[in-house]
């Protein structure tokens, strides 16, 4: 997923633009992945998006057995290969070399997306450009006129996987809110997001609205609210 943000996005996301601290506040990328990994249950079938979501696999707690699906035709994806194991015919959806675990299986794209579309994958972790209060997700296009549109499997994943987790910086590099009343970028899917793991907080998408359930260390609810385009429900207080 392209996580860069266009001029159009900067102009549109006017809800909250506090200055972003240069100093580290909240969770870093590894910590976000680690926090998300706590919620991946034993026995889950999981598809991880490119970028921070990929890191989730490294942090699944010991004792849990999780099977990773990559939409280009492999269930039971393993870690990156050693030099010896490297095979250009064995790659993941990000086109990076991977390995296959004992108990893996290969299949064609038709069958692979039948797994996705047919609700067989339990969890998909993706990046986001914007998430709306209703769980709409925009993560494939800024809608900029000069961009080369590219969607890949993102729309299939959000439409078909049972639970969609989002890992994202809470705001853009310029401090604009990415969690908004409505997405201003073209949607990837409507009402598809279950939970957001940002650098500042964990937020659930519920019928009542966005519920903040957890704060990064030393981060206050007010700090998060000030960087969020919609009113959050504080489950902590």
């Amino acid at each position: 997923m392209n996580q860069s943000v266009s001029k159009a996005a900067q102009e549109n996301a006017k809800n909250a633009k506090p200055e972003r601290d240069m100093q580290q506040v909240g969770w870093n990328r590894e910590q976000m992945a680690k926090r998300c990994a706590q919620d991946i249950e034993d026995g889950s079938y999981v598809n991880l998006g490119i970028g921070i979501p990929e890191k989730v696999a490294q942090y699944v707690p010991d004792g849990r057995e999780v099977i990773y699906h990559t939409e280009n035709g492999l269930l039971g994806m393993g870690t990156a290969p050693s030099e010896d194991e490297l095979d250009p015919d064995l790659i993941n959806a990000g086109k990076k070399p991977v390995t296959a675990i004992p108990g893996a299986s290969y299949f064609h794209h038709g069958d692979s997306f039948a797994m996705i579309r047919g609700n067989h994958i339990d969890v998909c972790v993706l990046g986001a450009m914007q998430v709306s209060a209703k769980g709409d997700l925009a993560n494939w296009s800024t809608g900029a006129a000069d961009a080369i549109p590219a969607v890949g499997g993102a729309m299939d994943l959000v439409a078909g996987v049972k639970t969609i987790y989002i890992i994202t910086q809470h705001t853009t590099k310029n401090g604009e809110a990415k969690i908004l009343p409505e997405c201003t970028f073209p949607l990837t899917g409507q009402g598809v997001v279950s939970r957001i793991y940002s650098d500042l907080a964990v937020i659930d998408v519920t019928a009542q609205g966005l519920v903040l359930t957890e704060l990064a260390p030393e981060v206050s609810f007010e700090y998060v609210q000030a960087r969020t385009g919609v009113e959050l429900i504080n489950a902590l207080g």
Partner: protein
Amino acid sequence: MIDKNISSCATAVADIKDGDTVMIGGFGEAGSPIELIHALIDHGAKDLTVINNNTGSGRVGLAALIENNQVAKMICSYPRTANSLVFPELYRNNKIQLELVPQGTLAERIRAGGAGVPAFYTKTSVGTPLAKGKEIRNFDGHDYVMERSLKADFALIKAKCADRYGNLIFNKTARNFAPIMAMAATNTLVQVNQVVALGDINPEHVVTPGIFVNRIIEVANPQQESQLVKDGVVYPPMNKVAGE
């Protein structure tokens, strides 16, 4: 840890409820999960909708499930075969419903159910009584009928080998409906001749990936329907009328 092995067929079928939809694998006896079906008879769930290509033969397996009055409705393509005695009698007496579906449409409806496709179009049955009441739509000058997907609460299938993840391989034409039924059911129960270690099935040769499988029951020496029929076996044995 993932281990889909279940100790017995009885345990595997224990949560099938009255009114559930159950897909049962097999084309005739090839691939028929006799031991799972007999466990379902012992279990006793009623008012089932059963999806299978046929209606069983003799008085064992699927035919016995029907004879035991557990099936309210059959969805199948060919309800009468040699040695098929139970269904025809119940059907003629209006004691069981039948939804007759062309075999390929049955397969594609099941595959669609597993693949998240709620409806599709096919040429099959256009202009025949089996298209009656269905939407007909023209694409590029040809008429097609719209068919809805089929899903099930449970699938009962038979495979040759499984590992603890539920990866399956099959034997010859006993494969038939099992892979697509495994996809279309919420709970897929598989009786296998042999459970092997993880990694013993080559990932290139897996036919049904474990993601479609929920419970595995090893039945090392399954009964063969045709042999049971030949031997005049009736299941459950108590259904055999005195003097038969």
